[in-house]
C-alpha cells in the first residue's frame, strides 16, 4: 500500500484544488439565498390572492354596503334592480357541504376503521389505493355523473326532486371526499401505537370495543382534522355543483331544489364574462373573498387540531 502511495498524492491534489474550495464557498453562500427567493413564491402567491381579492372587494363594498351583502337574502346580480345578498350562496354552499359530509364522514370513518382495525395487510394494500383512485377522478367527471346518473336515480325515489338540485351534487361530493376522510383517518388510526390495542385486547375487549373506545378516541385529532379538511374541500368544490345544481339563487333549505354555491356563482359570472368596472364584476371578488375566508378558516382549524393534539401519547 505504501508503495502505491508514491504514484499520486491525493492530499497534494486536494491542496492544489484550493480554487474549487473558493467556488464552493461562493456557491455555498449563494444557494440558500437563491432558494429563499424561490421559497417565498408561495408567500407571494398567497399575498397575490389576498390582494387581488381585497382591492376589488373593498371597491364592491363602496357600492353595496357590507351589511346588505352579508344579510341580504336576495341575490339578483343582473338587470336594473340588482340586489347583492350573499346569503343564498352561503346557504347553498353550507347545505351542499353538509350533505357531502353527511355522506363522507360516516362512510369514510367506517372505511378507515375497517381498513385499519379489521382488514388484513393484504386487503388494506389493495383497497386503499383503489379508494384513492376515487379521489383522483377529475371533478368534472363527477359533475357529469351527478347530473346524468345520480339525479335521475334519485328522482325515482324522490319524485319532487328538481332536475337540478343541491342533493345530488352534495351526495356525489361526499363520495368524492370519502377517500380523503378514510385515508387521513386511517393514517391517524394506524399511528396509534399497537401497545394501546394490545392493552385493550388483553382485557378481553372485542375488535369493535378496541376500535371504538380506544383507537378512535386516541386518533380523534387526526380524524377530526380529516373531517375539517373534507369540509374545506366541499366548500371549495366547483364543477360538480355548477353542473348538477343549476344557478337558481334560491334562499331556501329545501334540498330538492336548485341552489347556487359561491363557487358556482363565480363560474356563472365569469362564464358570462363580467366586464371590469360593473358591480357584477366586483361582486365576483366579494364572493371569492368570502369563499377564501371560509376555506382559510377551515384549513387553519384543521392545522390547529392536528398540531395541538399531535403528541398525546
Amino acid at each position, binding site marked *: 500500500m505504501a508503495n502505491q502511495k508514491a504514484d499520486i498524492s491525493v492530499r497534494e491534489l486536494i491542496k492544489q484544488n484550493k480554487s474549487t474550495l473558493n467556488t464552493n464557498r461562493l456557491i455555498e453562500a449563494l444557494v440558500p439565498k437563491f432558494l429563499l427567493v424561490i421559497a417565498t413564491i408561495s408567500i407571494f402567491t398567497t399575498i397575490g390572492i389576498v390582494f387581488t381579492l381585497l382591492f376589488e372587494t373593498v371597491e364592491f363594498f363602496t357600492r353595496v354596503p357590507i351589511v346588505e351583502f352579508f344579510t341580504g337574502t336576495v341575490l339578483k346580480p343582473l338587470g336594473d334592480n340588482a340586489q347583492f345578498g350573499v346569503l343564498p350562496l352561503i346557504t347553498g354552499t353550507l347545505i351542499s357541504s353538509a350533505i357531502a359530509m353527511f355522506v363522507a364522514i360516516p362512510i369514510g370513518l367506517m372505511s378507515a376503521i375497517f381498513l385499519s382495525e379489521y382488514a*388484513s*395487510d393484504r386487503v388494506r394494500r389493495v383497497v386503499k389505493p383503489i379508494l384513492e383512485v376515487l379521489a383522483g377522478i377529475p371533478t368534472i367527471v363527477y359533475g357529469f355523473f351527478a347530473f346524468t346518473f345520480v339525479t335521475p336515480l334519485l328522482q325515482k325515489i324522490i319524485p319532487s326532486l328538481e332536475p337540478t338540485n343541491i342533493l345530488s351534487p352534495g351526495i356525489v361530493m361526499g363520495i368524492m371526499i370519502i377517500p380523503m376522510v378514510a385515508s387521513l383517518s386511517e393514517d391517524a388510526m394506524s399511528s396509534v*401505537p*399497537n*401497545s*394501546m*390495542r*394490545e*392493552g*385493550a*385486547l*388483553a*382485557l*378481553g*375487549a*372485542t375488535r369493535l*370495543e378496541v376500535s371504538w*373506545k*380506544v383507537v378512535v*378516541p*386516541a386518533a380523534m385529532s387526526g380524524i377530526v382534522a380529516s373531517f375539517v379538511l373534507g369540509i374545506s374541500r366541499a366548500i371549495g368544490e366547483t364543477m360538480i355543483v355548477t353542473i348538477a345544481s343549476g344557478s337558481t339563487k334560491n334562499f331556501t333549505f329545501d334540498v330538492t331544489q336548485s341552489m347556487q354555491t359561491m363557487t358556482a356563482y363565480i363560474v356563472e359570472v365569469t362564464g358570462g364574462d363580467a366586464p371590469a368596472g360593473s358591480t357584477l364584476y366586483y361582486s365576483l371578488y366579494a364572493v371569492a373573498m368570502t369563499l377564501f375566508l371560509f376555506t382559510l378558516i377551515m384549513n387553519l382549524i384543521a392545522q390547529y387540531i392536528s398540531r395541538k393534539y399531535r403528541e*398525546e*401519547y
Partner: protein
Amino acid sequence: MQIVTSMRESMNGTSTSDTPVEKNMVYETKDFHLWYGDKLALKNINLPIYENEVTAIIGPSGCGKSTYIKTLNRMVELVPTVRISGDILYRDKSILSKTFKVEELRTSVGMVFQKPNPFPKSIYDNIAYGPRIHGIRNKKVLDEIVEKSLRGAAIWDEVKDRLKENAYGLSGGQQQRICIARCLAIEPDVILMDEPTSALDPISTMKVEELVQELKKEYSIVIVTHNMQQAARISDRTAFFLNGEVIEYTATDKLFSNPSDKRTEDYITGRFG
C-alpha cells in the same frame, strides 16, 4: 392462526422434572411449536404453570420469552404469519381449539406489558375500561372497582385525588401500576407480565416487585424478565429459555443455586446473553 395437527404425547420429561410441591395446574403446555412464517420461534415446549405461584421466564434476547407468554392469552396471533402446533390447556380446556373464545380467555388472564401502555384517557376511565366493556355500568359499582383495583396495585394513595386526569401525566412507574390496576379490575385468574419493570427506575421496580409478591396470594403470575436477580427475588419457579427451547424448568432456588444444565449455568453466571 393455523393449527397444525399435532400428536398429543405425554409430557416430555426433561423440562418438568425436579418440580417442587405438586399444586393445581393453571396452564399446561404440551409439545408446543410456533413459527413466524418459516422461522421456528418456539420448539417443543412442555411447561406446566401452577396456581398461586410466581413463574419466571428468563433467557437471552430473542429466545422466545415474549412469544411464549403472548401465546398464553393468544395475543401472539395478532401477528398474521403465526403458525402453531401442539396444545395449551388453560384450566383443562384447550385454548387453541376453534370454538374457544379468546375474549373470554383474555378476561380471565390479565396481561401487563413491557412498556406501560395506559389508554390516553383519565385514570378512572383506564381502570373502568375493562368492567365497562363487560357490561358493568353502575356508577357506584365502578367506583368501588376502581378504588379496589388501584389499592390492589398499590397506587391508590398517589392518584386518588386526580382520578379524572389523563393517565399520561403520571410517571412511568405509576403508569405501569395503573396498567396492573387496569388488569386487576376485571379480577383475572392469571396475570401475565412481560418484563414489567424493564422501563422503570429502581424505586418503581421495587414497588412493582413488592406488588407481585402481594398479588400472588390471589392470582397466579407468569413473569418474563431479563433481570436474573429479579427472577431470583420474586419467583417460585423459573424456566430458562434458549433459542425457543425450554432448557431447564424447576424451583427458582434450585435453578439459580444448582442448575442442572451447563447452558443454564453459563447464562446465569453471565457467560453470554
